[in-house]
């Protein structure tokens, strides 16, 4: 099929990103999704999971390039977090990846994406309890809030602070009980500015994928220009596309878009991420299979 985003299940989530050298974070560091940088960047960001029983399958947090705040590390994916898959839904074991940022090195000022300094880039600061963070971001924000501030980092941080380390609250932003509009955030790897899409305006995966392509891949030209690593749009829409569509569900897990019936998807999706296929290496064979299955399935 021409065009179309490939619907692929992903693993490892990621949220806002701050690279770090020293880590005051025992559990989670942050992976930048603004990264359009080479995977072999020296500065590796880790997504550390602190799961019951062990320090978790943490990525490495090498205090590498202290000066290279501009660089990002590669995005860690499912294969880096074997315990994500195996520990899901255990009692008392978090299945979501909680991110609250990393400790800012003393002299560091900015980080990729040019987002705000100060608040929001330090674990556990400002000292607001997790349940309150979740409640805050759950609320429908006043109009001033979302639209004009959709800088990737900030969104990610908010999302990050949303996720609890513990068995998280289930946040259903797409469809809530009051029948509010089902706008969910969509972020695409390599593009710092996220978008929002109204899921309730679509009735099937095809239509959603089309809308997302319009949103991201048509306009990717201008954004992608500066970042040499972003693949040119023309390649994105190939069948063996560089990008796949994943979503985060109510339990905080990153999943394949397309496995479940549309309505079930609506009730559990929290947000979307257009992820690089290369990051989902371990899933490749499965992906092709399920992809074809899904495509041919009537929705």
């Amino acid at each position, binding site marked *: 099929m021409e065009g179309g985003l490939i619907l692929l299940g992903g693993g490892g989530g990621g949220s806002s990103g701050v690279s770090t050298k020293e880590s005051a974070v025992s559990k989670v560091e942050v992976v930048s999704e603004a990264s359009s940088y080479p995977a072999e960047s020296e500065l590796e960001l880790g997504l550390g999971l602190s799961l019951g029983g062990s320090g978790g399958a943490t990525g490495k947090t090498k205090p590498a390039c202290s000066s290279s705040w501009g660089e990002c590390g590669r995005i860690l994916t499912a294969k880096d977090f074997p315990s994500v898959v195996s520990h899901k839904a255990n009692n008392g074991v978090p299945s979501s990846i909680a991110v609250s940022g990393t400790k800012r090195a003393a002299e560091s000022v900015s980080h990729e994406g040019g987002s705000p300094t100060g608040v929001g880039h330090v674990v556990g600061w400002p000292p607001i*309890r997790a*349940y309150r963070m979740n409640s805050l971001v759950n609320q429908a924000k006043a109009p001033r809030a979302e639209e004009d501030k959709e800088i990737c980092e900030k969104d990610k941080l908010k999302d990050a602070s949303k996720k609890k380390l513990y068995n998280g609250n289930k946040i259903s932003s797409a469809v809530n009980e009051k029948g509010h509009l089902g706008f969910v955030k969509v972020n695409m790897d390599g593009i710092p500015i996220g978008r929002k899409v109204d899921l309730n305006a679509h009735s099937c995966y095809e239509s959603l994928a089309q809308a997302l392509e319009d949103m991201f891949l048509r306009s990717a030209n201008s954004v992608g220009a500066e970042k040499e690593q972003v693949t040119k749009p023309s390649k994105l829409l190939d069948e063996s596309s560089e990008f796949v569509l994943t979503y985060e569900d109510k339990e905080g897990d990153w999943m394949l878009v397309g496995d479940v019936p549309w309505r079930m998807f609506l009730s559990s999706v929290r947000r979307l991420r257009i992820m690089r296929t290369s990051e989902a290496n371990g899933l490749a064979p499965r992906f092709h299979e399920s992809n074809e299955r899904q495509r041919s399935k009537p929705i």
Partner: protein
Amino acid sequence: MESSELKRSKDSPNSDESAGLSSFPDEVLERVLSLLKSHRDRSFVSLVCKDWYNAERWSRTHVFIGNCYSVSPEIVARRFPNIRSVTLKGKPRFSDFNLVPQNWGADIHAWLVVFAAKYPFLEELRLKRMAISDESLALLAVAFPNFKALSLLSCDGFSTNGLAAIATNCKNLTELDIQENGIDDKGGSWLGCFPESFTSLEVLNFANLTSDINFDALERLVGRCKSMRVLKLNRSISLEQLQRLLVNAPQLAELGTGSFSQELTFRQYKELECTLSNRKNMHTLSGLWEAKGIYLPALYPACTNLTFLNLSYAALQSSELAKLLAHCPRLKRLWVLDTVQDKGLEAIGLNCPLLEELRVFPDDPFGEEIVHGVTEAGFVAVSYGCPRLHYVLYFCQQMTNAAVATVVQNCPDFTHFRLCIMNPGQPDYLTNEPMDEAFGAVVKTCTKLQRLSVSGLLTDLTFEYIGRYAKNLETLSVAFAGSSDWGMQCVLGGCPKLRKLEIRDCPFGNAALLSGLEKYESMRSLWMSACKVTMNGCRLLAREMPRLNVEVMKEDGSDDSQADKVYVYRSIAGPRRDAPPSVLTL
């Protein structure tokens, strides 16, 4: 009082021969002492003499354990045979902010096993920052036939299945208070597990659960529990449903609404208003998620006798708040979001002369705009209007030394002063100086100060002030502050009543840590993370002070010699055996 007779014959054969105080018959002594509720008073009493120690331990029915690792369940059970109510706190407070590894410990299970054997008549259990599994809840549900009250605050490790076990089995339950926990919310069906014959519930708080509740079950439950006085709903409850519940619970003293933003017809609105207007005996109101300004007037009649209003989930504008507060003349405690801004705080100053506690939470803590939320002006405005203010928690983006000095001049009775300037290490934004003088003013003026949280750019001078003036200070929280070891040394050398010291991201190292050797035994705990303390320093501390547990939490990839996170606490139970591999006990 069989038990006391037994004890009398065994333990105090010579009571008649002791002078003065101990010539009371033990029954009288115990009776008198049983009226003592404060656990501190009881501690003092138990130190008077052996008879008093025994009378106290036999008459005590409630035990408070501020650090679950300071003592073992066996020791507690041995000393206090007649306990009916237990309050236990577990993890260090910074676990609320994700600074403590997930599997750190503080598991309630070992305690429950001992309690099941030694306190079969246990009635109340209040836990804070403990790890609880569904199995533990299931055990709790069946092991204590008289169990009445369960309160879980900031706990984690359990799911709604555990709640279902409690609901199913605890026939005498009067209180179920599930606050702010890391709960695996699997759905609202647990509410339906209360049997139809169950009518004793007086307190029900599930405000922080997120999933939809089985409303029919809830409605029936509220309907048959005629003594219900505290009901705190979660966001899934709509206004319409609230209305139906309220009709069935006329005697509620504390109400937490659900979501306050459903589209109502005029008639529905009027009905709600009418129902609420009869609630003159309500003293606490909370919830109000997504509160729509146009519906707030429905609350006005119910606010006449309100003493505690929690608007920290309602992003109100200043005008909405002002209008609401005009109807709350008796307010003593108010929690708001900073969406109300300085104008809203002015309104507080104008309308709430009896206010004793104010908490202002940030609506958008990671926002980019500099001038956002509340500033020093609002803080000062409140202080002029509310001289009785003694508890403040204030999140802001900017503050000045002068403003804080004015505030404490207007309100010298502060016992809890928690100021959070959200940008770490930020100076006085007008003068660009450190915020030392602000906190200097606080400790000099507020002689009753028990709890202090500092923020902003601070040098050692702040800590000199604290050490010198804060004679009643018990809890101190420090982040991104100080210039050298001297700062922490000042605090440890002063502050005679210091019990809890929590420090993060400060340049305090081994010299500072070790300057408090003797002090730590008189404190509950010390937390230091991302400071300059090394493993050797910690080892030295552990060696010198065998009655302290010195625990170091290592992070992946960090330098082996650095002690990333240190938690030191006194304990009569010795080093704990349930620490995960990432926590080293020295």
